[in-house]
């Protein structure tokens, strides 16, 4: 068998099965969702193939646009909190002795490998009316607070679920830093804070960006956490999409919302790549 024929046969044998699977169950479905955004809804779900711009008009209706903006805010707040908690943690882990480093890292990812629904459920137990946090407050004579079913509870659940995704890239970025850089900065008379601001932080920007993206993306499109911890009042884009597909049966509008979700994430990805290249 000739070499080039062997290569072509190899490419065919190895690439065809997986790529066929991806085309049928990934690309075709995504193309369908994309195409549904310009069609009308069917009476009992599905789609009627007549063009309309109605879905996009509804998207900019304040009723729905506010939900998109609200979701962006919640995801942003979640990301900032995760960054503020994750950076010092990752920084300290990076400086632990080798054995403790591994243990500390495993301890960070361990909760992440347990069932997602269970982790969210734990927060219902903690925050609900007769829950632990309120029992603790009672000891200090503080009246029970409405902790569950609001945006604060959503943010708590999101930070809890995705914090490991922030700590890991931060750790990788901080650990790569040459400790001599910080020593040089200190020897030249810079205070700890100045060294952090002028040396450590700028050099770990790629880690900050990756971690932020890892937290922001699943937070923005989440529907389980707002549904279980946010109650009926606080809707996020994910809840809207879920509603359109599973209860309202308006697949074209649901698809348009999903397209908006993807568009926001694409913008962020491109921005991240751009900043990372300049950093």
């Amino acid at each position, binding site marked *: 068998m000739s*070499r080039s024929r062997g*290569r072509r*046969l*190899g*490419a065919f*044998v*190895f*690439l065809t*099965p*997986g790529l066929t*699977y*991806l085309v049928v*169950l*990934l*690309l075709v*479905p995504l193309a*369908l*969702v994309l195409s549904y955004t310009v069609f009308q809804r069917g009476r009992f779900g599905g789609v009627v193939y007549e063009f309309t711009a109605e879905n996009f008009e509804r998207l900019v209706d304040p009723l729905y646009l506010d939900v998109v903006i609200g979701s962006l805010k919640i995801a942003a707040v979640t990301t900032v909190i995760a960054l*503020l*908690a*994750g950076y010092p*943690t990752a920084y300290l*882990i990076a400086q632990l002795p080798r054995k403790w480093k591994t243990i500390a890292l*495993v*301890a*960070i*990812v*361990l*909760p992440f*490998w*347990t*069932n*997602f629904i*269970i982790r969210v*459920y*734990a*927060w*219902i*137990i*903690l925050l*609900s009316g*007769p*829950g*632990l946090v309120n029992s603790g407050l009672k000891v200090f004579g503080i009246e029970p607070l409405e902790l569950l079913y609001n945006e604060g509870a959503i943010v708590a659940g999101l930070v809890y679920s995705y*914090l490991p995704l922030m*700590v890991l890239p931060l750790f990788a970025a901080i650990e790569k830093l040459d*400790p001599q850089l*910080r020593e040089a900065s*200190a020897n030249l008379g810079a205070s*700890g804070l100045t060294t952090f601001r002028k040396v450590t932080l700028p050099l770990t920007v790629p880690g900050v960006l990756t971690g932020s993206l890892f937290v922001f*993306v699943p937070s923005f*499109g989440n*529907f389980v956490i707002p549904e*279980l911890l946010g109650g009926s009042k606080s809707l996020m884009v*994910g809840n809207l999409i879920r509603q359109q*597909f*599973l209860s309202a049966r308006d697949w074209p509008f649901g*698809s348009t919302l*999903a397209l908006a*979700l993807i568009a926001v994430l694409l913008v962020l990805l491109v921005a991240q790549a751009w900043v990372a290249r300049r950093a």
Partner: protein
Amino acid sequence: MRRSKLLYVPFWATYVFLYAPIAVLVVMSFNAGESAYTYEGFSLKWYGELAGDDRIMNGVVNTLIVAVGSTVIATVLGTLLAVGLARYTRSKLLDAVSLMPAVLPDLVLAIGLLVFYGMIQLTLGLYSVILAHGVFAMAFVAAVVRTRLSGADTSLEEASRDLGAGPVATFMRITLPQLAPGIVAGALLAFTLSLDEFVIAFFTIGNAEPTLPIVIYSMIRFGVTPKINALAAILLLVSFTAVIAGQRLTKIGESRAQD
């Protein structure tokens, strides 16, 4: 290096934040009372009730069926794809497509598959979930196997080809044995991801008997009981053991590789 004592505050706060909710969950699973919130003494009764709950037991069986099915699909297709991408093409586009299911929000993949299944009028059930889980699990297997491939020595494969073996024979007798640890790691990852997956299963299961995460989800929406805590405690124990065992195994594998 100077380490500020002040840094230990957020450091420990992070770990308390991560483990306190889990600890509360486990303590409450041993509650003798009816409430999921107030502790009234030790009891194992909720664990007993768990075993007699058909919905939960069926959920466990369905979850295992889906996880095994999608892991088989993902491992076979993902391994082939990884070898194909690493050895037979330089296309950046194919690379991106193969990683896409791992990066795409699960909700988007879920509605895409729902729309697609609706279009081909497939009756939804466990097999539609298996096919759906196969999509993202394959991306993870392919990524893990590729990492292993990029570190592998290609001279053996070249020698095999120079001696006249075709691509399939080279793959079966040289590449596959070299890749085995990566394939096992990828398969374990696929299996674990499928066990826990909720969103895609929720959209693609239709009216069929649900998987465990969906059972738990509907139980929670109905109301919280210590029974869910008991179930949670068992699941926590299972995944903690699996992660720690996996950690040990990779360590052993690494030290063997170094010998």
